[in-house]
Each structure stands twice: as structure tokens, then as C-alpha cells.
């Protein structure tokens, strides 16, 4: 009846968060959505492109990536907000009153689960380019050139999206505002910015205008732009007027998008009451 043995150690809290994550249906729905969207969009895109004269089957691998990330994003947001959108946080923080291990454990559990989802989604994308490739009798070799890096980059991109979602969810604590934030930053803002520049009627000017340069820079530094650098082979032509970060730089920018809100959420947990 007295305190015996060590209590809430970090590995134990990770085990608890893994149980919590995998015991919600929403987690599995988001995972399934990621795999299905990845396979379906890549298949459709490969099928449409296979008629082109210079068709390269491997060029379609990342065709569905931008929308595939919605699954991991939602998975992360629901994991980050789940404690607060329900009363679950009371149980959680009474068991782990130091609080920060919960956040760290959630990041580990979500990253681990999202990694599996990401691998499954990338496998789905690979399988989806095979029918179009075989219809043109083109070989698909995944081990040549930059393809292994592209595949690894896709996995990191999708895993990073889930951790980014978790971080924003844990900071914002409410499902809808968190979803609006992550989807706005990853999908809506880049499109809006690009359209804004195009509509300003500078398309026919030679070279890159300052506005385009600014917009391209911002777009590259947004989560999906930075993540996109992970899957862009270094020999591919870069978007004009953007900082040349490379895959590692892109990965670091994506990591910052996850880390900054995560740290902010930790500070909020430490300084404020939870109720």
C-alpha cells in the first residue's frame, strides 16, 4: 500500500501511449486512408501518364504524396487533441503528474506508428505504378539512381506529417482548429500564394519577379514544401527563386515544423493548469 518500485518511467509511458493510440478506431481509419489514397492516386496518375512518349514509371511514384499526407496529418492531430477534446487528460496526468513524459511518449508512439503507415503507403504507391509500367513493357528498378532516396524521402515525409499534426494538436488542444491549422499550412496556403502571384499578371515577364521569389521561398519553407524537398532528386530542376536546401535541409525544416509546436505544447503543459 505504499509506493513500491519505480513509477511512470518514460518507456512505460511510451507503452501506455502506444496502447492508447492503437486502441482508437480513428487511428486505423486514418492509417487505412493513407494507404488507400496513396495506392489509388498513384495508380490513376501512372495510368494517365503511361501514354506520354517519354513516360518514366518511377516519375509517378510521388504523384499521390501531397494528398496521402492527409491520413498521417489527421492521425497526428487526433492523437494530439484526443486527451483534451475528451476528459482523458485527467486520467493521463494524474498517472504521470510530471506531464512532459506524456508528450514525449506521444511523439514516439505516433512517429513509430506513422512510420509503419508510411512504409505501407509507399509500398502501395510502388505496387500502383506496376500495371502502367508493364503495359508499356518498361522495367521498374527501385534500386537504381535516386529512387531509393525518393522512397526513403516519402517515408520520412509521411512520418513527419504525423508528428507535425501531433505537435499542432497538442498545442491547440481542439480538433477543428488544429485540423484547420495543419491543412491550411500544408495544402491551402501554398495554393493560395501561388494563385495570388499568378493573378497579379506577371507570368509573361522574363525571369523571376520579386513576388514570385518571395512566394516560392515561403512555399518551400511550409511543411509540404520542405517535405517535398525530401523526394526531389538533386538533379531535378529546382523551383526558380527558392533557397536551395536540398533533401537534408528540407528534412530539417520539416523537423522544425514538428519540434517548435511540440516544445510550445510542453511549455504550456508545464506552466498552466490542465482542466
Amino acid at each position, binding site marked *: *500500500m*505504499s*509506493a*513500491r*518500485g*519505480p*513509477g*511512470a*518511467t518514460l518507456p*512505460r*509511458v511510451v*507503452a*501506455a*501511449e502506444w*496502447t*492508447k493510440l492503437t*486502441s*482508437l*478506431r*480513428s487511428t486505423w481509419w486514418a492509417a487505412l486512408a493513407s494507404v488507400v489514397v496513396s495506392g489509388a492516386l498513384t495508380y490513376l496518375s501512372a495510368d494517365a501518364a503511361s501514354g506520354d512518349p517519354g513516360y518514366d514509371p518511377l516519375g509517378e511514384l510521388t504523384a499521390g504524396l501531397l494528398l496521402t499526407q492527409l491520413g498521417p496529418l489527421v492521425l497526428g492531430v487526433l492523437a494530439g487533441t*484526443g*486527451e483534451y477534446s*475528451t*476528459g*482523458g487528460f*485527467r*486520467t493521463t*496526468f*494524474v*498517472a*504521470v*503528474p*510530471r506531464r512532459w513524459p506524456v508528450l514525449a511518449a506521444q511523439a514516439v508512439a505516433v512517429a513509430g506508428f506513422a512510420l509503419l503507415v508510411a512504409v505501407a503507403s509507399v509500398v502501395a504507391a510502388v505496387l500502383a505504378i506496376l500495371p502502367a509500367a508493364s503495359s508499356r513493357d518498361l522495367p521498374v528498378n527501385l534500386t537504381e539512381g535516386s529512387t531509393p532516396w525518393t522512397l526513403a524521402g516519402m517515408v520520412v515525409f509521411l512520418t513527419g506529417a504525423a508528428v507535425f499534426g501531433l505537435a499542432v494538436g497538442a498545442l491547440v488542444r481542439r480538433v477543428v482548429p488544429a485540423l484547420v491549422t495543419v491543412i491550411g499550412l500544408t495544402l491551402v496556403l501554398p495554393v493560395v500564394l501561388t494563385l495570388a502571384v499568378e493573378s497579379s499578371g506577371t507570368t509573361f515577364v522574363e525571369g523571376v519577379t520579386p513576388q514570385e521569389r518571395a512566394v516560392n521561398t515561403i512555399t518551400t519553407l511550409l511543411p509540404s514544401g520542405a517535405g517535398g524537398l525530401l523526394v526531389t532528386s538533386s538533379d531535378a530542376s529546382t523551383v526558380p527563386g527558392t533557397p536551395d536546401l536540398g533533401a537534408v535541409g528540407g528534412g530539417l525544416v520539416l523537423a522544425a515544423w514538428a519540434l517548435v509546436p511540440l516544445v510550445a505544447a510542453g511549455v504550456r503543459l508545464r506552466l498552466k*493548469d*490542465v*482542466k
Partner: protein
Amino acid sequence: MIQVQLLTKRYGPHTAVDGLTFTAPPGAVTGFLGPNGAGKSTTMRMIVGLERPTSGTATVNGVRYADLSAPLRSVGTMLDARSVHPGRTAFRHLMAMARTHGIPRSRVEEVVGLTGLESVAGRRAGTFSLGMGQRLGIAGALLGDPGTLILDEPVNGLDPDGVLWVRHLVKGLAAEGRTVLLSSHLVHELALCADRVVVIGRGRLLAEAALGDPALGAGSLEDAYLRLTAGSVEYRAGAVDGGTR
């Protein structure tokens, strides 16, 4: 043993708990009484570290809750039946709690049995009635076999069977030498299961005494309660906050 000393909590200009001092000793059920909004739940949340006191201290066995090495093994807490993710089954909810302290699956099965949840443990908590939610909350509190229990309105929503069960449960826990702090607004129920009472109103201590202590005056606990809280009734009538903050 729970010791609360000069505990104060302010939310801006509103003082929820105001210099509260009391002790819940081991081997007894301490009933925690007060009108809605008196600060019972706020006090309990401060004891378990969900809220930080503006001033004053709350300790369990002389240690601040957040400094306990294995909190679930020292203190079992049931604050609100809605402290569970509705999408998770009762069993998985308890398993996740247990894993934070390396508590084995066999103990989870044990508390599921103790609280009579066997037939519904595989159901998602969101489908539970209030009474089943209370039983799940009590199961979670018992998980670490703790020496101290903090139960906020545990009989709320329970059927007469359940009320009787909680009464026997808490008396048994106290008889084993454990500390039990149990809040309720059901004065009759507390008169049946508590050994001593702490009565608060407007966040302040109104009385702390053993049942039957002349300090509570002649007559029933209800008489004493109504007399003690008479000054807090206006507050209760005008309160916006039903004590759920």
C-alpha cells in the same frame, strides 16, 4: 494521509478555495461536504496536481503529489466519470493506465472483476451509462492498490445496488488502514459511510470533526450541514459555476 494546508486557488478575481486546512487521516473515510461551487473538486484537483495552488500546500504522506515516485501506487483518484476517451474500450483504458506504472494485466482483470465490469469491459467507454462510468472510474482508482483514495462524487448516477457497493467498498478500504477522502453532496449517504467530515463553503473550512462529535451539534448530519452552510446558500443560489471547472 492527506494534508491540506492554507490551500488557496484564485481564478482572476474569483477565489475558489480560500485558505483551506484539513487532514484526511489513514484508517478512516473522510467525507468532504459542501454546496455546489464550494471548491471541493478544485481542492481535489489541486491535491493530485492537475491545478497549481495560488498558495498553500497539499501533500499525500508528506509528499507533494507531483513528487510521488509512483503516483498510481500511492494514490487512487476518481475525479470525474468523464475522464475517459469515449472511443476506447474500458479494458484498453485501464490497460493504458496500468502500463504507465508497469502494473500487470492480471491486476487490470482483477479490478474489472472487483467493480463488476466483466461483461462490458470490451465496450467503448462512450457507450457507458453514468453508473458504469463511475464503476470504471473506481476501477482506475483501485488499479495501483493505493494506500490513499480520492473519490469525487463516486455514488453519482449509481443505482441503489451500486450505492450500497460503494459504501461497503470505502468502509472496507478504510478498515484496511487506507486513507479515503470522498466528496459528495448526498449528506445522508456520507452519514452512512464516513467516519469524519470536512465541511466547506465558499472555499473555506466550516467544520472538521468526527461524526457524532459535539462540535457538529445535536441532531443529524444533515441538520449540522444545513446550519453550517447557511451562510453559503446565497452563493449557491447565485452561482454560475456548478463546480465543474
